[in-house]
């Protein structure tokens, strides 16, 4: 039996050109909203940004029920019902924003989505820096109609900033790109900029 590396956190269970759904190996052990993830190996992977995290029962027909009426803590509930970790799962919604090909990074959609069961990795700061060196991926992300999109964008940019040598300059450049893309929607831009303001 092989052990997973610490950055390997999930596996793709649904895949399309623009969206992936992955299941976390461990219940509740999802990266934060807006995290940059990669499905597949370094050389030939697909990049995505986490735009949603969900935890639900394995069997859609069986709903969870409240079990903690006599427990003092939440942990006690899980300790007394060890099967819960097997019956529940945490899934990740990922928006595809780029890919690698022979080691080069592209901030646009891959020709094919990853296969089901492709491994999903979190990206270390140097990979985040390399990917966010260009903002060409922002339109893919901003086009997703979800209330979580802008939060994911803000979170990604905020966490990516320290990976760059000049964080304020990075945020300013990102802000200007957003201003360009959202020029027709000043209120949305305003909200987004407030989220990424250092």
């Amino acid at each position, binding site marked *: 039996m092989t052990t997973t590396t610490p950055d390997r956190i999930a596996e793709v269970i649904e895949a399309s050109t623009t969206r992936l759904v992955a299941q976390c190996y461990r219940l509740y052990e999802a990266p934060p909203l807006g995290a940059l993830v990669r499905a597949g190996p370094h050389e030939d992977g697909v990049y995505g940004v986490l735009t949603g995290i969900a935890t639900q029962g394995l069997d859609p027909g069986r709903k969870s029920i409240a079990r903690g009426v006599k427990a003092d803590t939440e942990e006690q509930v899980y300790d007394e019902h060890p099967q819960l970790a097997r019956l529940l799962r945490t899934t990740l919604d990922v928006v595809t924003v780029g890919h690698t090909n022979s080691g080069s990074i592209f901030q646009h959609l891959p020709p094919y989505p990853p296969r089901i069961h492709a491994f999903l990795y979190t990206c270390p700061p140097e990979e985040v820096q390399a990917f966010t060196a260009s903002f060409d991926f922002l339109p893919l992300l901003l086009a997703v109609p979800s209330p979580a999109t802008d939060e994911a964008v803000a979170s990604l940019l905020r966490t990516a900033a320290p990976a760059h040598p000049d964080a304020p300059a990075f945020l*300013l450049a990102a*802000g*200007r790109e957003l*201003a*360009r893309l959202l020029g027709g*929607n*000043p209120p949305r*831009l*305003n909200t987004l*900029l407030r989220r990424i303001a250092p």
Partner: protein
Amino acid sequence: MTTPFTQRQPLGMVVGGSVERGLQVRLEPEIPLESIKVGAFVVVQGTQLTYFGVVTDVSLEAVDPRYRSSPPDVSNPFIAQVVTGAGVYGSLQVTPMLALAVAGQDQPQPAKSVPAPFSRVSTASERDVQLVFGKEDARHFVIGTPLDMETEVCLDMEKLVQRSSGIFGKSGTGKTFLTRLLLIGILQSGAATNLVFDMHSEYGWAGYREDGASVKGLKQLFPSQVAVFTLDEASSRRRGLSPDFVVNIGFDEIEPEDIQALRETLNLSDVAADAAHSLERHFSQRHWLQKFLDVTGDDFSTLADTINVNESALSTLQRRLQRLQRLDFIVEKAPAKGTVVQLLDYLDRGYHVVLEFGRYGDDLTAYILLANLLTRRIHQRYRERKEAAIGDRSQEPKPLVITIEEAHKFLNPQVASQTIFGAIAREMRKYNVTLLVIDQRPGAIDTEVMSQVGTKITCLLDDERDVEAVLAGVSGRRELRNVLARLESQQQALVFGHAVPMPVVVRTREYGSEASYRRLAAPLILSQSKDMPAPAHPELAEGARRQRDVDALFGDPPG
């Protein structure tokens, strides 16, 4: 911006425009909008041509109109920084004036096209300014520096003296200083001889700045090349000047044409002014005025009848002309070697002559009478000489530039067609005589005359009529209006016309410090660049003679 100008500094890119309206330039977000001034000199790098232009307007644009109704949260400095330049950005209106082929080494030509879309726009570098305005040499005289730059803008003095030029501006905007500079430029380049009708005695000997400090005049800087004539010897001597000649005019030298020029000043009717001609015919040619002024009593009615002029008009004429008797410099009979002869003699010998009016400075009658009378004689002499020299350029008289102040008194539409100055402005270029007119009311000058003024140097003007008059016939007039109306009230001038390849706003060169005198009076750099033709009259560019003046003034140069 106070960045060094050895290199071009990027400003933005061309996003629209036309030859007629000028270019629209979107400013880079990094450029502080407030640092861009109207009148700044910029370069547009097209694909085949490099364009040189002037910023004629600066505006704020928003990518979406909603920015106006719901402005971004600029209390957050980050948001303010992001939105400025991206959502809301600065836009420049640039009028392209000249174009230069990227590949060729030619001189810039007037711009007749627009650069390719998204061409880069940058501030001009020192090299650009030199390329356009030339480098200081025997022919190019430094007039000042472009806005916010240390590079020098030169006037082509050869071209300046080919046509009449004008210095305009409201009172107190620095016309006098500009005039001093221009006179020195003409003198130093040897392009022409100066004759200055110095109304307020400010050019020949010491003048004063607004703060009361004294500044040197031409004679002090170039003692061996400048002669000062005076109407008021006592005033000249009080100011420490021993004039080269004291001017006296005989009544017998005044002609009916001189009276015509005084029509407005003496408030004469047409009939009265025309009567002067009849009087001249009636009396002998030379003594008509004296004789007319002596007529009294019954003789007066007889005279009116004889020459068939209304008696009251004639009596008005006599009364008004009696004012001339109060002018001490007018004597009964002209001296044998009179002012006209002396003046021509000095001019012939290459002297630049300043005629000081002393206490008559505020007397327009004296100023107009004398300026007209002398200029008419000179005009006649130049005309004869030029005609005699037809076909032989070496025999032509050296160009003469006559400087007059309060020019609208000579050149207003009512008298311009009758005074000699109107004729000079219109056609005397052919006879090597041009005018340097100084005026605060260019709107009052005859439009025909204004249209013939080749080089215009204008300080701040705010009267609509004056601005209109100065800019009449200039391409890009509407845009230049903007520039002109926003000049600072001192030491800034818009220069355009014959002596400069394109309009430019300059901060006038310093005048008044020892260093400035030393540089102004220094011999010109005689080593000319290869592509510049030699000055037309090199005889005055005598380094030794100049150096002697400089040494006499300042002693040995330091270090």
